[in-house]
């Protein structure tokens, strides 16, 4: 599916690499000892159950929260990301799960927030033209870009947030559940977009609960479980069932039960989670996996 062979890329030095990153909130240990590598031109999917710590990881990378322990290396240099400004300056663009839009501002204002054209005499016309271009590209169904984002539908807001992240010239794009609220068409556009980004040599971290989407675009999958690494897989080596087992921590889980049941009920032609032969090449832990690659 991708034109660039994943293997070649993985042998190069990673754009981003996290080692031993931990974070706790009060009595809750949200992340413990996380390792993660992302290479240029690679799409890494980050999957995991609800509350597994995916968004927390994203927030650490984008400077929203500081980590409690561990190191982050970006472009070969050890970095400490104190604030979102630091992350933006490094070239990390993020679409947050909670979108982080200013409800009182219009679509155009939000898209260009912090990087308005002509800071002393805003070029509203040019910004509006560019906004339309961006949004059309994502098949956004937004009637007007001059209305406050407060009045947009969930999917429209999400499209705006995604469009935002494309405006700078980032090296790493982090998408935290970018397609959660999107319609089928917009989802397809975002998946196309992710592929285009990879072809342009950007590194992409994509979080999603949708295994189809994950399998459609990602080169590697990192699984988090209850705040810890629970394996990293090459996409081509892993089956959906394996992934789900890694996410839920059990091969016999409610998802497979449902799949089995649905299959048994014989509602033909409706693709549930497609049953596949369990692949045995599952790589057990992130550390060893990453080690073998370098």
């Amino acid at each position, binding site marked *: 599916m991708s034109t660039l062979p994943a293997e070649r890329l993985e042998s190069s030095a990673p754009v981003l690499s996290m080692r031993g990153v931990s974070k706790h909130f009060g009595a809750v240990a949200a992340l413990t000892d996380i390792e993660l590598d992302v290479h240029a031109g690679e799409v890494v999917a980050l999957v995991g159950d609800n509350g597994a710590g995916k968004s927390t990881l994203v927030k650490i990378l984008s400077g929203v929260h500081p980590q409690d322990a561990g190191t982050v290396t970006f472009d070969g240099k050890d970095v400490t990301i104190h604030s979102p400004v630091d992350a933006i300056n490094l070239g990390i663009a993020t679409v947050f799960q909670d979108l982080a839009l200013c409800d009182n501002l219009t679509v155009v*204002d939000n898209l260009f927030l912090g990087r308005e054209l002509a800071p002393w005499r805003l070029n509203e016309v040019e910004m509006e033209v560019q906004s339309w271009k961006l949004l059309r590209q994502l098949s956004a169904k937004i009637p007007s870009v001059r209305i406050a984002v407060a009045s947009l539908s969930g999917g429209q807001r999400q499209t705006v947030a995604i469009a935002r992240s494309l405006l700078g010239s980032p090296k790493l794009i982090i998408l935290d559940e970018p397609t959660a609220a999107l319609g089928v068409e917009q989802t397809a556009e975002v998946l196309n977009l992710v592929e285009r980004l990879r072809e342009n040599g950007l590194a992409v971290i994509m979080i999603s609960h949708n295994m189809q989407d994950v399998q459609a675009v990602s080169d590697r999958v990192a699984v988090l479980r209850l705040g810890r690494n629970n394996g990293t897989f090459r996409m081509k080596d892993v089956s959906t069932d394996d992934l789900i087992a890694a996410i839920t921590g059990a091969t016999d889980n409610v998802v497979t039960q449902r799949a089995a049941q649905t299959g048994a009920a014989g509602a033909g032609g409706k693709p549930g989670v497609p049953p596949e032969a369990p692949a045995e090449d599952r790589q057990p832990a992130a550390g060893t996996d990453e080690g073998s690659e370098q």
Partner: protein
Amino acid sequence: MTVNPASTDVPVATDLQDERLIRTEGFRGAVKVGINRVRGGDLGVLPIVVGLLIIWTIFQLLNPFFLSSANLVNLLLESAAVGVISLGIVCVLLVGEIDLSVGSVSGLSAAIVGVTFVKQGWPIALAILAAIAVAAVIGLIYSFVYNKFGVPSFVITLAGLLGFLGLQLWVLGVEGTINLPFDAFLVWFGQQAFVPAWLSYVLAALGVAGFFLSQLSLSRQRVKAGLSGRPMGLVIGQTVILAVVLFFSFWYLNRARGVGWMFVFFAVLVLIMHYAFTRTRWGRSVYAVGGNREAARRAGIGVTGIYTSIFVLCSSFAAIGGILAAGRLAAAAQSSGTGDVNLNAIAAAVIGGTSLFGGRGSAFSALLGILVIQSITSGLTLLNLESSFRYMITGLVLLLAVILDAVSRKSRTSHGRA
């Protein structure tokens, strides 16, 4: 719902292509949009202007002097000082904070000008600069405490309210009141400086022309970029209305002493702040921080810098307002900036439509709000009532003026959150 027949053959502008948009083009379309906005409650400053007109009508009926040129000239002059302070309040309210100390800071700057200019004999310009510099430092201190410790601005500036009132008393020393000489520039500016009639018309003409040309060029630019332009008819209509209002006001005020320079100064400050809020990156950031601080931070906006600039601006405006008030009173006194200066400045901003919760409002709300407040004060002044009735009626009129505004706002929210 109706498609303008003229627009069917030309390509539809980029921003009007969505099928769900109730199509509107040309002048008739604009009028239709206008009616729709009125019905939807999205009226901008219109309701408060209407409220103002109603107040004026009522007071004029009660006392024929109210709308006399002479009284309106006074009204405008009396609005300027607190209006400037209120402009600073608009700044802090836009980021969702508050400054309770504007009264004390204004009093302190009046005291500083009084002492340095009258007692120490500094040149007036230097004295004013010194007072504003002190206020700016106060703003810096506020923003430092705010950014560093995250103390709510309500409490910081409450401490400031007390602390700088103390400082004001201390600066004035035992004497308490310092008269500014009546021939000083400041006093002249506050009491005697009026725009000559011919100049006022020139200014009005410049303003109208500026408005028209900027609208025109904006519209041209938009059409060139493939967006919908503003209908020519509407632009001309607005220009004509602006021209009529400006020229008539100037003509009417010129029948008495004319427009005070102090009010012009205030109006210019409002226009500058309006430009800064709407046409600069800084202004956009201010609204963003007020609307959703965390989102603004994540967008890479230097949030602490925005707060710093806002607190410094607010204190500086308070200082300027205090100095203007001193000029108008021809004295710096212990009571300068005390009393209801704080409350009036905040109330003006809120009545003018700036939200106390941040992210919504405009520089014009300071202007409109203070006009409402001063109109009520002035109207009741002419009625010669007992204090008890004066207070009761002030409260009542204020409430009625604002209910009108709120009703239209409410209908807006019921038509969608925006």
